[in-house]
Protein backbone atom coordinates (compact mmCIF):
# COMPACT_ATOMS: atom_id res chain seq x y z
CA UNK A 1 0.00 0.00 0.00
CA UNK A 2 1.47 3.36 -1.00
CA UNK A 3 1.70 6.16 1.55
CA UNK A 4 -1.38 8.05 0.34
CA UNK A 5 -3.57 5.01 -0.37
CA UNK A 6 -4.89 4.98 3.18
CA UNK A 7 -6.44 8.41 2.66
CA UNK A 8 -8.59 7.32 -0.28
CA UNK A 9 -11.65 6.59 1.84
CA UNK A 10 -11.35 10.06 3.29
CA UNK A 11 -11.03 11.46 -0.22
CA UNK A 12 -14.21 9.65 -1.26
CA UNK A 13 -16.12 11.07 1.72
CA UNK A 14 -14.86 14.53 0.90
CA UNK A 15 -15.87 14.14 -2.76
CA UNK A 16 -19.34 12.98 -1.72
CA UNK A 17 -19.71 16.00 0.54
CA UNK A 18 -18.53 18.36 -2.19
CA UNK A 19 -20.99 16.80 -4.67
CA UNK A 20 -23.78 17.45 -2.14
CA UNK A 21 -22.66 21.08 -1.97
CA UNK A 22 -21.30 20.66 1.59
CA UNK A 23 -18.31 22.84 2.30
CA UNK A 24 -18.41 22.59 6.08
CA UNK A 25 -14.74 21.71 6.44
CA UNK A 26 -13.67 24.43 4.07
CA UNK A 27 -15.65 27.36 5.40
CA UNK A 28 -13.63 30.53 5.04
CA UNK A 29 -14.82 33.54 6.99
CA UNK A 30 -14.18 36.66 4.92
CA UNK A 31 -14.77 38.85 7.96
CA UNK A 32 -15.56 38.18 11.60
CA UNK A 33 -17.76 41.03 12.72
CA UNK A 34 -18.28 40.18 16.39
CA UNK A 35 -18.31 37.22 18.76
CA UNK A 36 -21.55 36.08 17.14
CA UNK A 37 -21.43 37.31 13.53
CA UNK A 38 -19.26 36.69 10.46
CA UNK A 39 -19.42 37.13 6.69
CA UNK A 40 -18.94 34.03 4.51
CA UNK A 41 -19.08 34.29 0.71
CA UNK A 42 -20.62 37.73 1.11
CA UNK A 43 -23.40 36.39 3.34
CA UNK A 44 -23.83 37.56 6.94
CA UNK A 45 -24.11 34.65 9.33
CA UNK A 46 -24.99 34.29 12.98
CA UNK A 47 -22.26 32.18 14.54
CA UNK A 48 -23.83 29.38 16.55
CA UNK A 49 -20.97 26.91 16.39
CA UNK A 50 -18.01 28.60 18.05
CA UNK A 51 -17.57 27.45 21.72
CA UNK A 52 -17.30 31.18 22.43
CA UNK A 53 -19.41 30.64 25.53
CA UNK A 54 -18.96 34.01 27.21
CA UNK A 55 -18.58 35.95 23.95
CA UNK A 56 -15.26 37.47 25.03
CA UNK A 57 -13.35 37.34 21.72
CA UNK A 58 -14.24 40.96 20.94
CA UNK A 59 -14.25 42.30 24.49
CA UNK A 60 -12.56 45.71 24.27
CA UNK A 61 -10.46 45.12 27.37
CA UNK A 62 -9.14 41.79 26.03
CA UNK A 63 -8.33 43.35 22.66
CA UNK A 64 -6.59 46.30 24.30
CA UNK A 65 -4.57 44.01 26.59
CA UNK A 66 -3.47 41.92 23.58
CA UNK A 67 -2.49 44.99 21.53
CA UNK A 68 -0.60 46.52 24.44
CA UNK A 69 1.31 43.26 25.10
CA UNK A 70 2.27 43.03 21.42
CA UNK A 71 3.59 46.57 21.46
CA UNK A 72 5.64 46.06 24.61
CA UNK A 73 6.69 42.38 24.38
CA UNK A 74 6.55 41.62 20.67
CA UNK A 75 4.54 39.26 18.52
CA UNK A 76 5.95 35.92 19.71
CA UNK A 77 8.29 34.17 22.12
CA UNK A 78 10.04 32.22 19.33
CA UNK A 79 10.71 29.20 21.50
CA UNK A 80 9.81 27.03 24.43
CA UNK A 81 9.90 28.30 27.99
CA UNK A 82 12.43 25.66 28.95
CA UNK A 83 14.87 26.76 26.23
CA UNK A 84 14.14 30.48 25.82
CA UNK A 85 12.90 31.29 29.33
CA UNK A 86 9.48 32.42 30.52
CA UNK A 87 8.09 35.91 30.15
CA UNK A 88 6.93 37.33 33.46
CA UNK A 89 3.38 37.34 32.08
CA UNK A 90 3.42 33.53 31.62
CA UNK A 91 4.26 33.20 35.31
CA UNK A 92 1.67 35.81 36.31
CA UNK A 93 -1.05 33.95 34.39
CA UNK A 94 -0.09 30.70 36.14
CA UNK A 95 -0.29 32.44 39.52
CA UNK A 96 -3.66 33.99 38.69
CA UNK A 97 -5.05 30.66 37.50
CA UNK A 98 -3.78 28.91 40.65
CA UNK A 99 -5.52 31.58 42.79
CA UNK A 100 -8.70 31.27 40.76
CA UNK A 101 -8.77 27.46 41.05
CA UNK A 102 -7.54 27.60 44.68
CA UNK A 103 -4.77 25.19 43.76
CA UNK A 104 -1.14 25.01 44.71
CA UNK A 105 0.14 25.37 41.15
CA UNK A 106 -0.69 25.58 37.47
CA UNK A 107 1.19 24.84 34.25
CA UNK A 108 0.15 26.76 31.15
CA UNK A 109 0.37 25.11 27.73
CA UNK A 110 0.21 26.51 24.21
CA UNK A 111 -3.10 24.82 23.35
CA UNK A 112 -5.73 22.73 25.10
CA UNK A 113 -4.76 19.76 22.96
CA UNK A 114 -1.13 20.10 24.07
CA UNK A 115 -2.28 20.38 27.71
CA UNK A 116 -3.95 16.96 27.52
CA UNK A 117 -1.23 15.45 25.37
CA UNK A 118 1.50 16.72 27.68
CA UNK A 119 -0.09 16.00 31.04
CA UNK A 120 -1.49 12.55 30.26
CA UNK A 121 1.55 11.31 28.35
CA UNK A 122 3.84 12.45 31.18
CA UNK A 123 1.81 11.54 34.26
CA UNK A 124 1.57 7.87 33.28
CA UNK A 125 3.93 5.44 31.62
CA UNK A 126 4.43 1.75 30.94
CA UNK A 127 2.85 -0.29 33.73
CA UNK A 128 0.30 2.42 34.62
CA UNK A 129 -3.37 2.36 33.68
CA UNK A 130 -5.78 4.96 32.31
CA UNK A 131 -9.49 4.31 32.84
CA UNK A 132 -11.23 6.83 30.62
CA UNK A 133 -14.82 7.68 29.73
CA UNK A 134 -15.62 6.30 26.26
CA UNK A 135 -16.70 9.75 25.00
CA UNK A 136 -13.49 11.53 25.98
CA UNK A 137 -11.98 13.98 23.51
CA UNK A 138 -9.36 12.90 20.96
CA UNK A 139 -6.67 14.83 22.85
CA UNK A 140 -7.28 12.59 25.87
CA UNK A 141 -7.06 9.42 23.78
CA UNK A 142 -3.90 10.72 22.09
CA UNK A 143 -2.26 11.69 25.40
CA UNK A 144 -3.04 8.29 26.87
CA UNK A 145 -1.66 6.53 23.79
CA UNK A 146 1.55 8.54 23.86
CA UNK A 147 2.13 7.61 27.51
CA UNK A 148 2.61 3.89 26.82
CA UNK A 149 0.21 3.09 29.69
CA UNK A 150 -2.64 0.60 29.41
CA UNK A 151 -5.89 2.29 28.26
CA UNK A 152 -9.27 0.98 29.42
CA UNK A 153 -12.55 2.64 28.45
CA UNK A 154 -15.64 2.67 30.62
CA UNK A 155 -19.15 3.22 29.26
CA UNK A 156 -19.99 6.89 28.89
CA UNK A 157 -21.21 8.53 32.10
CA UNK A 158 -21.64 5.13 33.78
CA UNK A 159 -20.09 5.13 37.30
CA UNK A 160 -21.15 1.49 37.77
CA UNK A 161 -19.14 0.43 34.73
CA UNK A 162 -16.20 2.52 35.98
CA UNK A 163 -16.34 0.74 39.32
CA UNK A 164 -16.37 -2.67 37.64
CA UNK A 165 -13.18 -1.78 35.80
CA UNK A 166 -11.45 -0.37 38.88
CA UNK A 167 -12.33 -3.51 40.81
CA UNK A 168 -10.73 -5.69 38.12
CA UNK A 169 -7.43 -3.79 38.50
CA UNK A 170 -6.77 -5.12 42.01
CA UNK A 171 -3.41 -3.89 43.37
CA UNK A 172 -2.75 -1.89 40.19
CA UNK A 173 -5.21 0.73 41.44
CA UNK A 174 -2.34 2.82 42.82
CA UNK A 175 -1.01 3.21 39.29
CA UNK A 176 -4.39 4.22 37.88
CA UNK A 177 -5.68 7.52 36.55
CA UNK A 178 -9.39 8.00 35.88
CA UNK A 179 -10.07 10.59 33.17
CA UNK A 180 -13.44 12.27 32.54
CA UNK A 181 -14.72 15.56 31.17
CA UNK A 182 -16.93 18.14 32.88
CA UNK A 183 -19.18 18.72 29.86
CA UNK A 184 -18.76 16.45 26.84
CA UNK A 185 -18.03 18.30 23.64
CA UNK A 186 -20.34 16.50 21.22
CA UNK A 187 -23.67 16.05 23.04
CA UNK A 188 -23.20 18.67 25.76
CA UNK A 189 -24.01 16.29 28.61
CA UNK A 190 -22.34 16.61 32.01
CA UNK A 191 -20.34 13.97 33.84
CA UNK A 192 -22.07 12.58 36.95
CA UNK A 193 -18.99 13.77 38.80
CA UNK A 194 -20.39 13.35 42.31
CA UNK A 195 -21.06 9.66 41.59
CA UNK A 196 -17.69 9.22 39.88
CA UNK A 197 -15.95 10.71 42.91
CA UNK A 198 -17.91 8.37 45.20
CA UNK A 199 -16.53 5.43 43.19
CA UNK A 200 -13.01 6.87 43.27
CA UNK A 201 -13.19 7.18 47.09
CA UNK A 202 -13.83 3.43 47.31
CA UNK A 203 -10.54 2.80 45.48
CA UNK A 204 -7.89 4.78 47.40
CA UNK A 205 -4.75 5.40 45.41
CA UNK A 206 -6.45 6.12 42.08
CA UNK A 207 -6.06 9.63 40.69
CA UNK A 208 -8.87 11.61 39.06
CA UNK A 209 -8.28 13.93 36.08
CA UNK A 210 -11.15 16.17 34.94
CA UNK A 211 -11.02 18.00 31.63
CA UNK A 212 -13.04 21.18 32.14
CA UNK A 213 -12.54 22.49 28.58
CA UNK A 214 -16.26 23.06 28.00
CA UNK A 215 -17.24 23.75 31.61
CA UNK A 216 -14.79 26.49 32.64
CA UNK A 217 -16.80 29.69 32.94
CA UNK A 218 -19.96 27.66 32.33
CA UNK A 219 -20.57 25.64 35.52
CA UNK A 220 -20.06 26.35 39.23
CA UNK A 221 -20.91 29.43 41.25
CA UNK A 222 -17.47 30.91 40.42
CA UNK A 223 -17.31 29.33 36.97
CA UNK A 224 -14.59 26.86 37.93
CA UNK A 225 -16.41 24.06 36.19
CA UNK A 226 -18.10 20.73 36.87
CA UNK A 227 -15.95 19.93 39.93
CA UNK A 228 -17.10 23.14 41.59
CA UNK A 229 -20.71 22.59 40.51
CA UNK A 230 -20.69 19.08 42.03
CA UNK A 231 -18.88 20.23 45.20
CA UNK A 232 -16.03 17.76 44.71
CA UNK A 233 -13.04 19.94 43.87
CA UNK A 234 -10.96 18.43 46.68
CA UNK A 235 -11.35 14.97 45.12
CA UNK A 236 -10.08 16.02 41.71
CA UNK A 237 -6.31 15.61 41.49
CA UNK A 238 -5.72 17.32 38.16
CA UNK A 239 -7.91 19.82 36.33
CA UNK A 240 -7.06 20.30 32.67
CA UNK A 241 -8.62 22.91 30.42
CA UNK A 242 -8.33 25.36 27.60
CA UNK A 243 -8.31 29.10 26.94
CA UNK A 244 -9.92 28.65 23.54
CA UNK A 245 -13.53 28.45 24.67
CA UNK A 246 -14.91 30.64 27.47
CA UNK A 247 -11.67 32.67 27.63
CA UNK A 248 -11.78 33.45 23.90
CA UNK A 249 -8.10 32.91 23.08
CA UNK A 250 -5.93 29.80 22.68
CA UNK A 251 -3.91 27.81 25.19
CA UNK A 252 -4.34 25.24 27.93
CA UNK A 253 -3.60 24.59 31.57
CA UNK A 254 -3.32 21.97 34.27
CA UNK A 255 -4.12 22.93 37.88
CA UNK A 256 -3.28 20.70 40.83
CA UNK A 257 -2.42 20.63 44.52
CA UNK A 258 0.14 17.91 43.94
CA UNK A 259 3.49 19.12 45.37
CA UNK A 260 5.40 17.71 42.41
CA UNK A 261 3.33 19.23 39.61
CA UNK A 262 6.20 21.54 38.70
CA UNK A 263 8.49 18.56 38.06
CA UNK A 264 6.18 17.46 35.28
CA UNK A 265 7.06 20.61 33.39
CA UNK A 266 10.59 19.32 32.76
CA UNK A 267 9.62 15.77 31.75
CA UNK A 268 6.78 16.91 29.54
CA UNK A 269 7.87 16.67 25.92
CA UNK A 270 4.84 18.45 24.41
CA UNK A 271 5.57 21.32 26.85
CA UNK A 272 9.36 21.32 26.49
CA UNK A 273 9.35 21.16 22.71
CA UNK A 274 6.53 23.60 21.90
CA UNK A 275 6.94 27.35 21.56
CA UNK A 276 5.24 29.14 24.43
CA UNK A 277 2.13 31.29 24.00
CA UNK A 278 2.58 34.72 22.50
CA UNK A 279 2.40 37.79 24.77
CA UNK A 280 -0.90 38.86 23.15
CA UNK A 281 -2.52 35.50 23.94
CA UNK A 282 -1.33 35.55 27.54
CA UNK A 283 -2.49 39.14 28.02
CA UNK A 284 -5.99 38.64 26.59
CA UNK A 285 -6.38 35.40 28.56
CA UNK A 286 -5.44 37.15 31.83
CA UNK A 287 -7.98 39.89 31.15
CA UNK A 288 -10.65 37.36 30.15
CA UNK A 289 -10.05 35.40 33.35
CA UNK A 290 -10.58 38.61 35.32
CA UNK A 291 -13.82 39.31 33.44
CA UNK A 292 -15.03 35.71 33.88
CA UNK A 293 -14.43 35.98 37.65
CA UNK A 294 -15.97 39.43 38.09
CA UNK A 295 -19.05 39.00 35.90
CA UNK A 296 -21.17 35.99 36.86
CA UNK A 297 -24.00 37.61 34.92
CA UNK A 298 -22.26 36.44 31.72
CA UNK A 299 -22.79 32.86 32.88
CA UNK A 300 -26.43 33.62 33.58
CA UNK A 301 -26.88 35.12 30.13
CA UNK A 302 -25.18 32.09 28.53
CA UNK A 303 -27.52 29.70 30.33
CA UNK A 304 -30.61 31.80 29.51
CA UNK A 305 -29.67 31.62 25.82
CA UNK A 306 -28.78 27.92 25.99
CA UNK A 307 -32.03 26.95 27.72
CA UNK A 308 -34.13 29.07 25.37
CA UNK A 309 -32.57 27.53 22.25
CA UNK A 310 -32.69 23.98 23.64
CA UNK A 311 -36.38 24.40 24.57
CA UNK A 312 -37.23 25.80 21.14
CA UNK A 313 -35.52 22.98 19.25
CA UNK A 314 -37.05 20.40 21.56
CA UNK A 315 -40.50 21.90 21.01
CA UNK A 316 -39.91 21.66 17.26
CA UNK A 317 -39.37 17.92 17.66
CA UNK A 318 -35.66 17.69 16.94
CA UNK A 319 -33.75 14.86 18.61
CA UNK A 320 -31.28 16.59 20.93
CA UNK A 321 -28.54 15.80 23.41
CA UNK A 322 -29.80 14.53 26.78
CA UNK A 323 -29.91 17.82 28.70
CA UNK A 324 -29.98 21.59 28.18
CA UNK A 325 -26.43 22.82 27.84
CA UNK A 326 -24.48 25.51 25.99
CA UNK A 327 -23.69 22.70 23.54
CA UNK A 328 -26.94 21.79 21.81
CA UNK A 329 -26.54 18.78 19.55
CA UNK A 330 -29.25 18.13 16.97
CA UNK A 331 -28.94 14.45 16.09
CA UNK A 332 -29.63 12.68 12.78
CA UNK A 333 -29.59 9.00 11.95
CA UNK A 334 -28.41 9.65 8.37
CA UNK A 335 -25.51 11.90 7.57
CA UNK A 336 -27.24 13.08 4.36
CA UNK A 337 -29.98 14.63 6.53
CA UNK A 338 -27.38 16.53 8.50
CA UNK A 339 -25.66 17.66 5.27
CA UNK A 340 -28.92 18.96 3.85
CA UNK A 341 -29.92 20.84 6.97
CA UNK A 342 -26.45 22.30 7.50
CA UNK A 343 -26.51 23.78 3.99
CA UNK A 344 -30.07 25.04 4.44
CA UNK A 345 -29.11 26.71 7.72
CA UNK A 346 -26.23 28.54 6.01
CA UNK A 347 -28.70 29.74 3.39
CA UNK A 348 -30.82 31.10 6.25
CA UNK A 349 -27.85 32.91 7.79
CA UNK A 350 -27.01 30.48 10.61
CA UNK A 351 -23.65 28.76 11.06
CA UNK A 352 -23.43 25.62 13.20
CA UNK A 353 -20.90 22.77 13.32
CA UNK A 354 -21.53 19.72 11.12
CA UNK A 355 -20.10 16.62 12.82
CA UNK A 356 -20.21 13.17 11.24
CA UNK A 357 -18.97 9.73 12.33
CA UNK A 358 -16.47 8.65 13.53
CA UNK A 359 -16.17 11.96 15.41
CA UNK A 360 -19.60 11.43 17.00
CA UNK A 361 -20.21 9.20 20.01
CA UNK A 362 -22.99 6.93 18.74
CA UNK A 363 -22.62 6.89 14.99
CA UNK A 364 -25.25 9.57 14.45
CA UNK A 365 -24.52 12.83 12.64
CA UNK A 366 -24.84 16.11 14.45
CA UNK A 367 -25.60 19.72 13.85
CA UNK A 368 -23.79 20.98 16.89
CA UNK A 369 -24.91 24.40 18.06
CA UNK A 370 -23.15 26.33 20.79
CA UNK A 371 -24.87 29.14 22.63
CA UNK A 372 -22.99 32.23 23.77
CA UNK A 373 -23.57 34.95 26.32
CA UNK A 374 -22.87 37.21 23.33
CA UNK A 375 -26.01 36.10 21.46
CA UNK A 376 -28.83 38.62 21.61
CA UNK A 377 -32.39 37.40 22.22
CA UNK A 378 -33.09 38.27 18.56
CA UNK A 379 -30.20 36.08 17.37
CA UNK A 380 -31.41 33.15 19.47
CA UNK A 381 -34.88 33.64 18.01
CA UNK A 382 -33.43 33.77 14.47
CA UNK A 383 -31.52 30.50 15.01
CA UNK A 384 -34.70 28.87 16.34
CA UNK A 385 -36.75 30.26 13.44
CA UNK A 386 -34.27 28.85 10.91
CA UNK A 387 -34.63 25.38 12.45
CA UNK A 388 -38.43 25.81 12.49
CA UNK A 389 -38.38 26.71 8.80
CA UNK A 390 -36.36 23.57 8.04
CA UNK A 391 -38.75 21.45 10.04
CA UNK A 392 -41.53 22.62 7.74
CA UNK A 393 -39.42 21.98 4.62
CA UNK A 394 -37.85 18.66 5.56
CA UNK A 395 -40.58 17.33 7.84
CA UNK A 396 -39.94 13.93 9.37
CA UNK A 397 -36.56 13.65 7.63
CA UNK A 398 -35.20 16.32 9.95
CA UNK A 399 -35.48 14.28 13.15
Amino acid at each position, binding site marked *: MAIFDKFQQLAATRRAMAESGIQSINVVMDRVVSATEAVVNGRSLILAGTNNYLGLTFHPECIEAACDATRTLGTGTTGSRVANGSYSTHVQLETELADYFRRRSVIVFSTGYVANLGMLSTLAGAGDVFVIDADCHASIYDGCRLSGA*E*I*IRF*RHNDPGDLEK*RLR*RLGARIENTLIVVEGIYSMLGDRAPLGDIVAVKRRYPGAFLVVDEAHSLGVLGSHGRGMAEEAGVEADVDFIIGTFSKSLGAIGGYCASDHPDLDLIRYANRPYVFTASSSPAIIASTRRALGILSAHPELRQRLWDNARRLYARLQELGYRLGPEPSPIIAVRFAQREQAYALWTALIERGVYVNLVV*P*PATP*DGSSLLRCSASAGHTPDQIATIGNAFADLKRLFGAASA
Partner: protein
Amino acid sequence: MPTYEDILAIVTELIKPLAAAGRSIREDTDLVSDLEFDSLKVMNLIEQVEDRFDVSVPLNILPDIRTVRDFTVQLQAILGDN
Protein backbone atom coordinates in the same frame (compact mmCIF):
# COMPACT_ATOMS: atom_id res chain seq x y z
CA MET B 1 -9.58 -20.71 32.25
CA PRO B 2 -11.50 -21.16 28.97
CA THR B 3 -9.64 -22.79 26.08
CA TYR B 4 -8.87 -21.08 22.76
CA GLU B 5 -11.79 -22.98 21.20
CA ASP B 6 -14.20 -21.86 23.96
CA ILE B 7 -13.19 -18.23 23.47
CA LEU B 8 -13.36 -18.50 19.67
CA ALA B 9 -16.90 -19.87 19.87
CA ILE B 10 -18.07 -16.99 22.08
CA VAL B 11 -16.27 -14.34 20.02
CA THR B 12 -17.83 -15.73 16.84
CA GLU B 13 -21.27 -15.72 18.45
CA LEU B 14 -20.84 -12.07 19.53
CA ILE B 15 -19.54 -10.98 16.12
CA LYS B 16 -22.42 -12.49 14.14
CA PRO B 17 -25.12 -9.88 14.89
CA LEU B 18 -22.65 -7.07 14.22
CA ALA B 19 -21.43 -8.38 10.87
CA ALA B 20 -22.88 -7.39 7.52
CA ALA B 21 -25.66 -9.79 6.53
CA GLY B 22 -24.63 -13.01 4.82
CA ARG B 23 -20.94 -12.80 5.74
CA SER B 24 -19.37 -16.02 6.97
CA ILE B 25 -17.15 -15.82 10.03
CA ARG B 26 -13.99 -17.90 10.17
CA GLU B 27 -10.77 -17.58 12.17
CA ASP B 28 -9.05 -15.74 9.33
CA THR B 29 -11.96 -13.40 8.68
CA ASP B 30 -10.74 -9.79 8.67
CA LEU B 31 -12.97 -7.64 10.88
CA VAL B 32 -12.59 -4.52 8.76
CA SER B 33 -12.20 -5.66 5.17
CA ASP B 34 -14.43 -8.78 5.33
CA LEU B 35 -17.05 -7.75 7.89
CA GLU B 36 -16.99 -3.98 7.32
CA PHE B 37 -16.50 -3.21 10.98
CA ASP B 38 -16.04 0.47 11.76
CA SER B 39 -14.60 1.79 15.03
CA LEU B 40 -18.06 1.91 16.60
CA LYS B 41 -18.65 -1.80 15.92
CA VAL B 42 -15.21 -2.73 17.19
CA MET B 43 -15.91 -0.90 20.47
CA ASN B 44 -19.33 -2.50 20.67
CA LEU B 45 -17.76 -5.95 20.26
CA ILE B 46 -15.15 -5.21 22.92
CA GLU B 47 -17.83 -4.09 25.41
CA GLN B 48 -19.79 -7.30 24.85
CA VAL B 49 -16.70 -9.45 25.26
CA GLU B 50 -15.80 -7.56 28.45
CA ASP B 51 -19.25 -8.21 29.91
CA ARG B 52 -19.23 -11.87 28.94
CA PHE B 53 -15.79 -12.63 30.42
CA ASP B 54 -15.85 -10.04 33.24
CA VAL B 55 -12.59 -8.61 31.99
CA SER B 56 -11.32 -5.22 30.77
CA VAL B 57 -9.82 -5.23 27.29
CA PRO B 58 -7.13 -2.54 26.91
CA LEU B 59 -7.37 -0.44 23.75
CA ASN B 60 -3.63 -0.96 23.31
CA ILE B 61 -4.26 -4.37 21.73
CA LEU B 62 -6.27 -2.91 18.83
CA PRO B 63 -3.35 -2.30 16.45
CA ASP B 64 -2.53 -6.02 16.68
CA ILE B 65 -6.01 -7.19 15.73
CA ARG B 66 -7.09 -7.73 12.15
CA THR B 67 -8.76 -11.13 12.22
CA VAL B 68 -11.09 -13.11 14.45
CA ARG B 69 -8.08 -15.28 15.35
CA ASP B 70 -6.02 -12.23 16.38
CA PHE B 71 -8.82 -11.08 18.68
CA THR B 72 -9.24 -14.52 20.20
CA VAL B 73 -5.50 -14.90 20.83
CA GLN B 74 -5.31 -11.49 22.51
CA LEU B 75 -8.35 -12.25 24.63
CA GLN B 76 -6.91 -15.57 25.72
CA ALA B 77 -3.73 -13.79 26.83
CA ILE B 78 -5.73 -11.22 28.81
CA LEU B 79 -7.78 -13.93 30.49
CA GLY B 80 -4.57 -15.78 31.33
CA ASP B 81 -3.19 -12.67 33.05
CA ASN B 82 -6.23 -12.28 35.28
